[in-house]
Each structure stands twice: as structure tokens, then as C-alpha cells.
């Protein structure tokens, strides 16, 4: 197994306030990993740093042997919440934008996924329900053919039917050797999807554990384990 992501001594401050401190992480390729932490714990910041969107002020992030921010940015598929697009933009225009910006965007893959999720290209962004918008975000992210995907709270605020569809699209279209990191603060529903979880607490990586270990060694569900960590009643 090769290492897809490596983070060494990452520190990140914003307006003099520590957001992330002493982050060290090694992720093997081929896995689906949950990035867990409460709101404001720094999950999105960490993803933006890994995706090469924010600059790394201190420490080193290596993605697939690349350390240059611009190279990483071209090779990591980070789910965009589409806030940069105008309300009246059509789905087909967003898809065209993705094709132009990302050379690894596969039109064929997008067609398959969007058909499966029931997305209508003629619709305008403003006309989409939260669930459909969530599907679009995941479809766009998965349509890039790359090795590392970062899905930032893809299920947050989404109805249960759409959540199920999104989860199965992730399973269907994940290549065996690609890696997906999914952030969430609500884990029970995606626990069956995950190999490992990264738990962010107190501005740092509190623990990396396989889901199986949590179930076998602690006899707890992931959600329960994670809650106990936050309450301080579980120690490593």
C-alpha cells in the first residue's frame, strides 16, 4: 500500500488564534476515511490545507509525493460547496466550468453519476433542493479522475433518501486505489462506509483508529466512541 497523504508538524493560525496545532498524519491509499470533529474543530480548514487551497504556513503536506501547493491543487478533488456560482447558473454551465478548470474531469463519469443521482442539467442552481444540491456537489467531486478526494460534510442537512443515494454513489464510483476523506460530525450513518476515522479535538489529531478496532477493542459504535472522547470519558 502506498502512502497517499502525509502531514508533518502542521501548524495553522488565523488572526493569531491557533486553529490547528502539531498535526501529524499518514494515510495509506485505497481507504475511505472519516474526519470527525465538532463544528469549529478545524475540519474544513484541514481539508482546505490538504487540497492546496490555503497555504501551509508551518509544516509539510505531501499528497501522492507532491509538496507544491499548485501541483496538489490540480490533483486533489475537494468538494466545492458551489457558493461561488451565481443563482441563475445552469447545471450544464457548472459542468462546463469543471471541464475547463480541471483536466482530470471526466465527462463520461459525470454523465453516469448524474444519471444515477437523477440530476437534470437544464435546471438552475437556485432551483435545486438542498438534497439535490448535495448530490450535485458529490457528483462533481467524484467525476474528477484522481487519487485523493476530500468531501466536506457531504451529508450535512440532507434528507435521508438523498443521503442513501449519495452514500451508494460514493461506493459505486470509488476506484480501488483512490482515497476518500469524508468529514462529518454525525457518523452512525456512514460508519459502514469507513475504514478508519481521524478524530480532531483540541486543535489537533486526537486519534486515528480503524472502525473495526473501535468496535472490537472498545465494544462501542463509532458515534458513541467519538462522543465519549469529546466528553473525556475515553482515554486512548
Amino acid at each position: 500500500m502506498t502512502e497517499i497523504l502525509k502531514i508533518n508538524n502542521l501548524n495553522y493560525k488565523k488572526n493569531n488564534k491557533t486553529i490547528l496545532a502539531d498535526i501529524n498524519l499518514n494515510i495509506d491509499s485505497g481507504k475511505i476515511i472519516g474526519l470527525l470533529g465538532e463544528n469549529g474543530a478545524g475540519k474544513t480548514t484541514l481539508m482546505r490545507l490538504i487540497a492546496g487551497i490555503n497555504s501551509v504556513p508551518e509544516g509539510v503536506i505531501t499528497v501522492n509525493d507532491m509538496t507544491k501547493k499548485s501541483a496538489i491543487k490540480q490533483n486533489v478533488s475537494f468538494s466545492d460547496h458551489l457558493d461561488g456560482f451565481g443563482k441563475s447558473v445552469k447545471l450544464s454551465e457548472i459542468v462546463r466550468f469543471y471541464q475547463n478548470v480541471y483536466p482530470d474531469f471526466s465527462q463520461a463519469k459525470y454523465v453516469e453519476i448524474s444519471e444515477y443521482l437523477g440530476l437534470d442539467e437544464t435546471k438552475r442552481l437556485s432551483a435545486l433542493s438542498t438534497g439535490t444540491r448535495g448530490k450535485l456537489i458529490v457528483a462533481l467531486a467524484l467525476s474528477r479522475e484522481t487519487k485523493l478526494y476530500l468531501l466536506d460534510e457531504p451529508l450535512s442537512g440532507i434528507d435521508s433518501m438523498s443521503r442513501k443515494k449519495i452514500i451508494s454513489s460514493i461506493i459505486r464510483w470509488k476506484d480501488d486505489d483512490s482515497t476518500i476523506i469524508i468529514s462529518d460530525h454525525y457518523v452512525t450513518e456512514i460508519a459502514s462506509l469507513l475504514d478508519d476515522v481521524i478524530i480532531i479535538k483540541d486543535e489537533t489529531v486526537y486519534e486515528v483508529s480503524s472502525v473495526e478496532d473501535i468496535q472490537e477493542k472498545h465494544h462501542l459504535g463509532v458515534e458513541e466512541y467519538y462522543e465519549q472522547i469529546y466528553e473525556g470519558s475515553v482515554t486512548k
Partner: protein
Amino acid sequence: MEYIDNIPIYLQIKDILYRKIISNEYELGSQLPSVRQLAVQFSANSNTVQKALKEMTEEDVIIPQRGKGNYVTEDDAIVNKLKDHIVTEMFDTTYDKLHSLNMNDTEITNSFSEYVKQREDNHE
């Protein structure tokens, strides 16, 4: 898919597949769905499905064929053993529960035959 939170998913998947084999939904010698199909069906990671299949292979219940996928064994002795095992597990739990109600073996046997008779009557 509804899973029990604190039991490894691969064990739960293995258990479901074993029940399908015992109940003949997956017949002796038949081909199992692909890893990806099972993963979608179980809303689970393919690594997790692989792990369940690996244990099933080690237990000789399924046989992988290179490039063709996994096949259920043709040996009914293996499946019967599996069935005995699952039935014993079910009885274990029930027997222990009845014992904890202070019932002795004769009472347990009698009330079970009584129960089966009632179920049969309800069916008619």
C-alpha cells in the same frame, strides 16, 4: 442497511451472507455477486466486503475462482455444519435466558414443544 453499532461490519456482513447460503437464497455452487455489487447492497466499503469474503474463503464456504469471482461451495456438509453452528448459537441465547427464569431442562423442553404446537395450530 441497519447495522449493530458496536460489532465489526465485516462480521455482520458475513453473518447475513451465511444466512443467505443456509436458506438457499445463494444456492450450492452458485456465483456470488461481485464485491462492488455486494458493497452497494450492504452500503459498505469494498475493503470491508473483501474482509468478510476472505474469512468465508478461509472457512471453505466460498471458493474464489481466478478472474470469475466467488462461488458457494458445492459441499453440503460444510453448509450443514454452518447451519448447525447458527442454530446452536440461537439456542444458546434462548436456553440461557430461560434458565435465568429458573426453568429446569424438563420445563424448557415441555414449554418449547408446547410453543411449536401452538405455532403449528396458528398456521392451519
